[in-house]
Structures are given as structure tokens and as C-alpha cells.
């Protein structure tokens, strides 16, 4: 135990300038989010783009609920991966186990926090749920199982799983020694203890898997059992929620793993096999999700029920088409990116272009401009507004096309590097995940009214964007800070 060991592993306890700058940026974003939320507390939800369904032609649920669903979805991956690693004894994946667990906990905290701003009476929300919550309401499950039970289970798992490392770290003198000792709670890494931990963790993992399916299904049921909302009322809702949860969570896990591989320089421990394995699983889930999407679209359009068709048209060709196709495009592109490393090297993966650098720069600019334009064109007016001029919709589509070219231009790299492919795939499927969450929550309200109120519209306001950005920053902050106080990977045997 020499100098090397004196330092805590994986950058724990080392705070450079860059780190503080990063924290500062995150804190300011969180602060901005809190400011935005304070505006909402003072003024009421009128500062959001949400409005009543019906005569107001609005959506009662929007960005907050969409991101709540997204965060809950992300949380899926972590604990599932940890459980799978445990149950299937996937030893080579052990290094990402804790990353995944932490992702679950952070995502669940964010999920809880993103429901709060959606409530008109947040204080009552906490108290009255404890006092009065009714089992009959699908929210009961979300509230008890997802937010409380699931979070608690993850914390327990995380705590137990970290005891060994805590015990190891407690031996090294550092300001955090006391904290590690507390965590370790007497753990000494004896074979008996190890055995006991394995047994406990095994049963815990087994208990968590059904809870997790139930919890995500419950969230699906929040939407799926509403017979009065075309687009929601579907048996597929719950399974699709589970699958999409996996897609977004594993995607994010891939990105996080790649970040640590780069930042911590742990190319050895976070080896390519991990990315190949996760990438493969992600590709599989994406395929299943695409299958669900096709099945659902077929069912709704085939039966031809007027309201379902109206809603589907709004998705495919109407005001939400840009979001729908961007999401689907991201999903498919992500899938292709993930599969590229498997293409035999004899097949040249090359997209004809003038010069990659130029194409990429142009593509990046186009993608950004395209997205802004789409939001600008479609955002404020999801329904036709009075006195609208001619719409340069094709401009938006051309820009979206350029964005595709941008992604395509990276394909040769993806074919070479499974990590790059994993990052690209992970990011793309998360873009798709956010898009799909919005598409589940919003259109059924604005375009799915069964009485002929006419199409409604919903455009998030700066308050909603700010609160969501603040939540993301908060999550990143929690994650980053934790990484600085506890090793994000299991401490290797030799250490």
C-alpha cells in the first residue's frame, strides 16, 4: 500500500479547476431552474404552456410529465443491468454495475422532482398523497412503487453493493474515511461476508426485477387505461413503456460508460466488450420497440376509428410529424450506428461526401438550425393560427436531411470503433426517447379529444425548458459529486 494506494481510486477526492468550473456551470443551471420554478410558484402554472383540454385547446400534461416518464424510464436500465449482472453472472460487465445503479437513483430523484412542478399544489401533493392516496388511481402505483419503493430498493441495493469498496477505502487515510467506515458498517470482506452479500444481493435482484416490471407498467397504465384518450388506450402501452425505458436507460449508460472511459482513462477496465454487449442489447430493444410502433400504427390505422386516425395523421403528417419523424429517424440511425461495428471490414462503410470535415460542420449547423426552425415553425402553432403566411416547411425538412447526412458522415468511425458507435447510438436513442415521451403525452390531449373541440396546441415555455434543464443539471451534479466521493467502479482486486 504505497503512494499509489494513498490516492483514492478513480479520481475520488481529487478536485481540479476544471471540475469546479463544471460544478459552477451546473449549479448556475440548477439555480436558473429554481428561479424559473419560483416564477411558477408565484404566478401559477399559467407561466407554462400547459392549458386545459377542451375549450382552451391545450394540453394539461406536457414537458414535466414527459420528462417524468423519461427519467423513470432511464432509471430502469441501471438497476436492471445490476440485477442482470448479478443473476446471469456477467462478470465482464461488473465495471458498469455501479454506474448503472447510480444512474437509477439519480434518475428516480429527478423523476420525483419533475412531478412536483406539474402539481398545482405541490405541498398538498406530498402531504395529501400520504394521507389520502387511493389504490384505484394508477398514480398510487407510481407514487408508492416507483417513487418510493423502487427508489428505496435501489438505495438498499446500492448501499449493500458498495460496502466492500467502502471497506477498502476506509483503510486509506482521507477526509472521507469516516464516511466510508460508516458505509462499510463493519464489512471486512471475509469470504463468509462475501457469500452472505452475494446471497442477499441475489435475492434482492430477484425481488427487484418484478418490482421494476410492475413499476414501469404502472406508469404505462397511467396512460394505457384511459379509454377516453385515443392514442393512450392500448394494451401495448405498458410493455412499450418497459421497452422504451430500457432503450433510453441503456443508451444513457453507454454514454456514461464512454465518458468515464475517456475521463478516467480506464480503457482496460471499461473494455470494448462491455460496449459491444450493451450496444447489442440496446439494438435488440430498439428493434422490439420499432416492432411495437409498427404494430400500434397498423392497429390504429387499420381499424380506422375516426379519432384514432385523426390522431395518427397528426403524428405522421400533421403538426407533430416533425417530432415523430425526427424521433423515428434518430431511433433508426441509432440502430444502424449500433450495428455498424458488426459489419465485416471487407464492406467499405463510406458515405460519399466532399470532405468529411466540411460536411460535418455544415451538417451540425444545419441540424441546429433545423431544430430551431422546427420548434419555431411548429412550436407556437401546433394548430393553424390566424393569418399565417406561407410555411417554408420544406426548409425544415431539408435541414433535417442535412442533420442525417451529418450523422452519416461519422459512419466510418462507428464501423471502426464500437465505443463511438455506442455513444452515437446512445445519444440518438435518447433523443428519440424524449421525442417519443412527448409524443405519447401531448398529442392525445391536443388532437385526441372525442368531442369535436378542434385541434389544440401546446408549446412549452421558457419556464418549462428551464425547469427541465435545471433537473438535468441537478442530475449531472449529483452524479458528478458522487463520483468524487465514491469510486464509480468496483475497486479492482489488485488495489
Amino acid at each position: 500500500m504505497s503512494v499509489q494506494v494513498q490516492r483514492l481510486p478513480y479520481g475520488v477526492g481529487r478536485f481540479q479547476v476544471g471540475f469546479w468550473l463544471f460544478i459552477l456551470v451546473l449549479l448556475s443551471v440548477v439555480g436558473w431552474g429554481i428561479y424559473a420554478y419560483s416564477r411558477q410558484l408565484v404566478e401559477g402554472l399559467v407561466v407554462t404552456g400547459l392549458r386545459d383540454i377542451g375549450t382552451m385547446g391545450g394540453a394539461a400534461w406536457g414537458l414535466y410529465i414527459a420528462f417524468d416518464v423519461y427519467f423513470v424510464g432511464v432509471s430502469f436500465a441501471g438497476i436492471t443491468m445490476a440485477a442482470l449482472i448479478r443473476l446471469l453472472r456477467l462478470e465482464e460487465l461488473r465495471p458498469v454495475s455501479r454506474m448503472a445503479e447510480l444512474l437509477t437513483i439519480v434518475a428516480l430523484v429527478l423523476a420525483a422532482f419533475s412531478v412536483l412542478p406539474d402539481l398545482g399544489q405541490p405541498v398538498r401533493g406530498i402531504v395529501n398523497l400520504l394521507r389520502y392516496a387511493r389504490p384505484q388511481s394508477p398514480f398510487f402505483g407510481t407514487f408508492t412503487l416507483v417513487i418510493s419503493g423502487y427508489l428505496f430498493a435501489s438505495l438498499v441495493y446500492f448501499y449493500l453493493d458498495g460496502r466492500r469498496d467502502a471497506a477498502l477505502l476506509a483503510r486509506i487515510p482521507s477526509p472521507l474515511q469516516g464516511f466510508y467506515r460508516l458505509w462499510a458498517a463493519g464489512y471486512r470482506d471475509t469470504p463468509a461476508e462475501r457469500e452472505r452479500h452475494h446471497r442477499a444481493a441475489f435475492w434482492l435482484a430477484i425481488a427487484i426485477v418484478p418490482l421494476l416490471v410492475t413499476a414501469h407498467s404502472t406508469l404505462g397504465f397511467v396512460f394505457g387505461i384511459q379509454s377516453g384518450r385515443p392514442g393512450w388506450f392500448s394494451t401495448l402501452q405498458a410493455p412499450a413503456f418497459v421497452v422504451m425505458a430500457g432503450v433510453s436507460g441503456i443508451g444513457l449508460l453507454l454514454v456514461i460508460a464512454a465518458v468515464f472511459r475517456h475521463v478516467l482513462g480506464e480503457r482496460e477496465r471499461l473494455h470494448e466488450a462491455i460496449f459491444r454487449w450493451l450496444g447489442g442489447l440496446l439494438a435488440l430493444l430498439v428493434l422490439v420497440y420499432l416492432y411495437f410502433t409498427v404494430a400500434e400504427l397498423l392497429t390504429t390505422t387499420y381499424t380506422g376509428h375516426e379519432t384514432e386516425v385523426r390522431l395518427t395523421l397528426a403524428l405522421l403528417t400533421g403538426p407533430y410529424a416533425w417530432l415523430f419523424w425526427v424521433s423515428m429517424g434518430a431511433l433508426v440511425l441509432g440502430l444502424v450506428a449500433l450495428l455498424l461495428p458488426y459489419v465485416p471490414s471487407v464492406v467499405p462503410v463510406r458515405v460519399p461526401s466532399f470532405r468529411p470535415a466540411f460536411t460535418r460542420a455544415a451538417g451540425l449547423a444545419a441540424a441546429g438550425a433545423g431544430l430551431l426552425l422546427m420548434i419555431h415553425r411548429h412550436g407556437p402553432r401546433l394548430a393553424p393560427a390566424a393569418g399565417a403566411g406561407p410555411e417554408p416547411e420544406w426548409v425544415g425538412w431539408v435541414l433535417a436531411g442535412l442533420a442525417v447526412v451529418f450523422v452519416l458522415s461519422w459512419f466510418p468511425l462507428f464501423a471502426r470503433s464500437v465505443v463511438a458507435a455506442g455513444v452515437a447510438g446512445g445519444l440518438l436513442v435518447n433523443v428519440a426517447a424524449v421525442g417519443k415521451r412527448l409524443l405519447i403525452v401531448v398529442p392525445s390531449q391536443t388532437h385526441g379529444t372525442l368531442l369535436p373541440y378542434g385541434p389544440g396546441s401546446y408549446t412549452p415555455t421558457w419556464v418549462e425548458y428551464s425547469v427541465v434543464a435545471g433537473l438535468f443539471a441537478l442530475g449531472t451534479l449529483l452524479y458528478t459529486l458522487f463520483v468524487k466521493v465514491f469510486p464509480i467502479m468496483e475497486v479492482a482486486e489488485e488495489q
Partner: protein
Amino acid sequence: MPRYAMVVDLDRCMGCRACMEACKVENNTPTAAFWMYVFRFEEGEYPNTYIWFMPRPCMHCDNPPCAKVCPVGARYKREDGLVATDWDRCIGCRYCEVACPYGVNYFNWKEPVRNYYLDWGERDVRRVTNGQTPPYRNPDLDRPYGEEKRRVAGGGRLKGVVEKCTFCVQRVEEGLQPACVANCPAFALHFGDLEDPQSSVSQVLGRKHSWRLLEELGTEPRVYYVGAHPAHPESRQIEEVKARV
């Protein structure tokens, strides 16, 4: 226990929207909240067109999706059939609103006292209104109702809670008709006890063929329509009210 229901005679409805205004004044609902809304529909093509009107209060369903999904029991069904909203308990999650297929729920997006159309805080106005907002504030709405003694009457009570048509619980408990029914200039609205064969609702239902809105969803509405037909995809809404907060 009476079994209250409303019957809307579409053969009589003139689409004047007086019921909407009577409701707004009686229940002090804030800007852009229409507990009662009247659709005006146009169907067909020139010159074979048809125009008709359909009032839409809360349906006070016997199988109310809103009450089922309410996480805290703020939305509940009373023994007499009224679906009530306890604004003292509502947490403002708007689940009732997304669950309701009829679009009858209205959330208080703003502090209600700042959402009554005009600035009533002016000195000259306060002198006559004793600072009441809105100036026509109905004192009956402050009382608790029902054997359960819950505060369910009126609108614009609190920021961040959901409100909707109460069938004018404050009037019904006094033996009066809901404000929209009492005011209908065309006598197109009926309200009463289905258990009582002499009530106007029973009489009208006995005389004319009736239907209910979105009956196929199994919500079992307590609002019956006689005359005309349910709106269908060809029913284009005209002169719609595009009020937003």
C-alpha cells in the same frame, strides 16, 4: 336519495349560450373557464346544410373516469349522483382532466382573484364591492355541502386546483334548479330526480328518444340528450369560443 340527472332537449336549443353566462355568474368561474359550454355545429355542404347546438355540462357520470383516477379522492361521486370536486383536497395533478373524455375540467392556472376579466381592485370599485373579487362574488359558494360537509361549490377558489361543473350543488341542495337550467330562454334544459316519475326529466325521457355522449366508453353519463344526434366527424364546430387564460 334522489338520483339527479339533466336532460338537454336539442330540438329546442337555440345555441344562445345564455347557460354559459348564467353559470359563470352563479359559480364565479374565472376567465376562460366554461363549466357549461355550447357547441355550435354546421354539417353538410351548401346548400344542403344543417346547423345545430349542443350544450355540454359535466356529464356527472355514474362510472366517472375522473373520480377513479383521482389520486387523493378530491374528485368523488356523491350519493345523489353529483360528481364533486373537493377543492380543499385537490393537489392539482390534472389527472382527472386527462382522464375525462368530455373535456369539462378547468384548472386554475392563475391566482383566481387576478383572473376575473378586469381589475376589480380599483378604489372606486372597491367602495361598492367591499373589496370582493369578482364584485358579484356569490357568498353561497363558501359553505360546505353534502352530508360529508366538503367544500365543493363554485369556481375560482384556489390557484392550482381543478374545478368543474357541480350541477350548482349550492342551488340543488336548496331545492333550486342549476343556474343554466333555470335561465335557459328556450326551456331546453331540464334537471331533476330520475327516481321521481313526475319530474320533468323523467317525463321528457319517457316521451322522447334519448342518447348520451360517448356512451360506448361506458362512463354512464347522467346527462341525457333528446332530439338531434350525437356529433359525428362531419359536425364542424362554428363560432367556437377560443378563450385561453
